[in-house]
């Protein structure tokens, strides 16, 4: 039996037919894009950076360690959210393919961050737990976990508006807030390292993570826009809409706090708190616009201009840096 729609509850025997005229062609497209972007940590010679790592100054090292620590458990968290949270409620075949591919790619990312920690003999136990021990990182994960666990414990009924709101919020927190705001904030730290000639092979891997995350972000945006289209009642609830905006802005504020603590009063990898904050405002504005909100901060230009380097075709000196151009066939 075939049930239509994005979410619902079906038997495992349902929806095992792929239509040649899919209801959501975008998920087919996103599935194909993600498939083409698949890569493996072994393609990068991370170990090459070991001398760089040893030469980092204490503050540089802290930024690097915190970033790796944050990603290492957060990538697993994204996986958990998908598996336990809203994934079981997806019923459209291509949407499921697109999100399972995302799940698979989160494994690659965990594997990648794990191999970084192994390569530089970093304190793995401490770093995996950093999101428990560091109060700000804890909050950054908790804001997501609190909401998603409502789904984990079976509270989201896909056939009620209330349940759909819960599901929407969970997608928002996972794919937009965590992957589209928190992750993007930390990406800038990594790219600044390469810009200052440090940790180049690790950052080559992060460039690949960025490609993946931008696709995951799009998975989330599409799912949310479709939910809104199919459940017009959600947008009618002014309070809920307000709440969603507040969640986004509160999350950004948490990140501002974190950035201030790490970068306040200093320049690390050529970055200052003020430009990072402005950058995050820029990113948050983009996310808000993507969901149909007005921008909150009105920052129209990415202040971290070196990031434009990520936007271009890339030519690598093969003998020098792991190339990320051969990974898509």
């Amino acid at each position, binding site marked *: 039996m075939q049930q239509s729609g994005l979410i619902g509850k079906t038997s495992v025997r349902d929806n095992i037919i792929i239509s040649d005229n899919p209801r959501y062609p975008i998920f087919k497209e996103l599935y194909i*894009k993600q498939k*083409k972007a698949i*890569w*493996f940590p*072994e393609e990068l*010679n991370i170990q*090459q950076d*070991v*001398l760089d790592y040893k030469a980092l100054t204490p503050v540089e090292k802290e930024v690097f360690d915190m970033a790796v620590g944050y990603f290492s458990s957060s990538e697993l968290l994204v996986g958990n959210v998908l598996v336990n949270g809203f994934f079981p409620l997806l019923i459209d075949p291509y949407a499921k393919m697109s999100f399972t591919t995302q799940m698979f790619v989160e494994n690659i990312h965990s594997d990648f961050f794990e191999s970084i920690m192994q390569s530089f003999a970093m304190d793995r136990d401490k770093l995996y737990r950093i999101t428990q021990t560091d109060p700000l990182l804890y909050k950054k994960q908790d804001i997501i976990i609190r909401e998603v666990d409502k789904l984990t414990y079976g509270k989201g009924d896909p056939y009620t508006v209330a349940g759909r709101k819960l599901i929407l919020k969970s997608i928002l927190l996972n794919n937009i807030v965590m992957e589209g705001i928190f992750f993007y904030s930390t990406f800038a730290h990594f790219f600044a390292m*390469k*810009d200052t*000639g440090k940790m*180049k092979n690790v950052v080559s891997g992060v460039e690949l993570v*960025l*490609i993946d995350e*931008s*696709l995951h972000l*799009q998975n989330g945006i599409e799912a*949310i826009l479709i939910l*809104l289209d199919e459940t017009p009642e959600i*947008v009618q609830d*002014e309070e809920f*809409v*307000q709440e969603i*905006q507040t969640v986004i*802005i509160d999350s950004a504020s948490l990140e501002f706090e974190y950035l201030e603590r790490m*970068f306040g*009063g*200093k*320049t690390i990898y*050529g970055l*200052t*708190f*003020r*430009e990072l904050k402005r950058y995050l405002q820029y990113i948050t504005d983009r996310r808000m*616009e993507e*969901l*149909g*909100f007005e921008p*909150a*901060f*009105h920052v129209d230009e990415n202040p971290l*201009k*070196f*990031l*434009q*380097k*990520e*936007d*271009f*075709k*890339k*030519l690598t*000196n*093969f*003998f*020098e*840096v792991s190339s990320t151009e*051969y990974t898509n*066939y």
Partner: protein
Amino acid sequence: MNRIVVKRDGAEEKFQTRKIVNAVFWLLEGLDVKDDYDLVYRIMKEVDLKVPERVTTEELDYLVLKAIEQLIPRNTIYDRLAARQLLKIITRKLDLRFKSFAEFIHFGVQEKILKKELLNFDLMVLEKAVDESRNDTLDYFGLSVLQDRYFCRDRNFELIEKPQWFFMRVAMGIADDETQAVKIYHKLSALEYLHSTPTLYNSGTTTSQYSSCYINVVEDDLLSIMDKVRETSLLAKYAGGVGTDVTRIRATGSRIHSLNAKSSGIIPFIKIFDSTVNAIQQGGRRRSSQVVYIQPWHVDIEAFLDLKETTGNAYLRTPSLNTALWMPDEMMRRIDKGEMLYFFDPAECSGLVEAHGEAFTKLYKEYIKQAEAGKLRLWKKMDGREFYKKYLFKLAKTGHPWLTFKDAHNRQNPCPAYSVINSSNLCTEISIPNSSQSTAVCTLASINLAKHVNAGKTDLDWEKLHDTIATAVKALDNIMDRNFYPSEESKKNTMDLRPMGLGVMGFAEALLDLGISYDSDRAVTLAGQIGEFMKNTAYSKSAQMAKERGAFPHYLEMQQQGKPYPYKPRRNAVLLAIAPTASISIIAGTTSTIDSYFSNIYARDTLSGKFIVVNKKLMAQLEAADQWSDEMYETIKTWNGSVQHIAELEGVIDRELYKSAYEIAPARQVDIAAAFQRSVDQAVSKSIYIDEDLRDKMEDIYLYAWNQGLKSTYYCFIDKTVKGEKYTTQVNKRGARRGFGSRSPVSAAAEPETGSVVETVAIENDVQALEAQARQQFGDAVVDKVLSGNMDSCPTDPLLAKICPSCE
């Protein structure tokens, strides 16, 4: 916000925008700039965001540099300013340390960083020749790479060299006397030609290793394999690239008579090289690299094709190695005709290894007969096209193995009596006879064709080109006697053959100056002319040197044996090789090798970091036509660096001239390489750029390359389709859908916009008048906030800065 600058002597002072403004104006000195106030203002706006609460003067210099660097794509002038700022950072410390060039040389020798022979030169003569005005020849990317990796450092890793000293030190390490040193210095510092990276690193230093490439041969014998591992490790240590022919190693399952056992095949042995080169590449300024070559009739070929895969059994993968095929014509012919290919064990069919041309074909057919008659123990066969497709799939997926042509290389072997050419090198441009007893070595230099266009831009300046070629040939020949050879085998090869490899870079830039499209017949014709001219000039110089210094020893030996080679005596067995010039074309600020512009705007990843490269000629032309703007930059960026689809440019520029690599027909790329190859006695390293849409045409493209007589191809770049979300360009993912859009916005913790760009304002000194003007322009709220000094950043707007208490 109050910000503090900590000066070199530890004293603290308030951060003042005005001081930075003055410093930036100082950088502009002597430059013809239209809108200098606006340029400086844009830099200030960037700097302001970057300066934290406490900053040292040294950090401040660096932040100014980073601020300018970010603006490079916006106006041609920023590149010059960034280069000048970087130079300022480099020289400031250095000038306190050394009073003169001579002092630097003395220091270097005393510290055993430079060779003591440098003191034999009359340093006063050389010092006079050092021309600091040449610094403006270097662009920002080039200077960044130089200071990061090429300039000498003392034992504490502090820089002790600046650009002109560097060029002179390199010249001194090559020249016989002051006249030659000055001559070479002038050519190098004008970027008319450059030596290869190892020469630039090591010339004149106590590490006298000038060569880029070594090529050795492994015999089918455990001792030889381990001996070559040892040799490779030594060659790699000194940052040379090593090419290694492994064809002779017996196949999996082949019999080992001494043990009465079966061999584990080539892959585990290749793996030893992988581990070795990975261990060695940890040190030094550039990682060492190795490529293993195999002739594809080897029965282990399928496992070889998989070496660069990233999945599967890690014991059978070689992530640190490069791989290449040494393809015989007979196999290409069979692929072309769709006939069967046969694969053999070199232990059983050893004749195939060194046979080439007709002899190979005859032998190959003979082995096929034996195989089909059941007389061979180990062999297999596969449809030629199937094999070819499988190979090209691997090439597109992993970038390896590269395709090079055994017979094309060997047909032009100038010394067949010495040995066959067993393989090429890491960059596929070398073609020198070698053997397990004689490891080929090649020392390279490349002429920057962009610096050899005549003043009227109507033709190349052939006379100047002649002079540069002659200078470079003599310099390269000198190097052979000063070079350090890490192994006896490598010394022997150079002493017997004295091979060198002179190539080119900046071909595409020269074409642009001459108004010739890369994708045109005229470009192919010019390529042929340049090649021929280089060959004639280099050969006549080498013949002249043979008269003065003697012909290469193997030539004389054959003459003595009564079996002379059928050509006039010359100093060097081979002279020309077109290398990829990956790093030195960056230093020279030009297009690499004979390639087209990669793109009009792109990012380049190097060991020194990531840089944005803009086609400066395009930018300058558009600026002159008043068409370069932030919007135009964004438009080109949206098109991934292509200008072919930008309608506004119609009639403004000849867009045909600005095609990027993927927009040039692959056949044209091959034609240009083939035109050079006709005169180049070694090989042309040619990467091929293939648009995603043409992926299905790969079979034809590589067959065409073979038919056109290329000796080598190199990387195959296929335009990538999946990219990350653009970071600095806004993309509408929502389309016409409204999402949450039907609701009204809430006001977030919106902050005042500091630094909105305004037109240049008249500067008056009367503070009250300024304040009034500011109130009118920005409103009372903003001005009061500025006056209270209570903002989280100083205003970057020049008018507001005037009235800001922290700034003044």
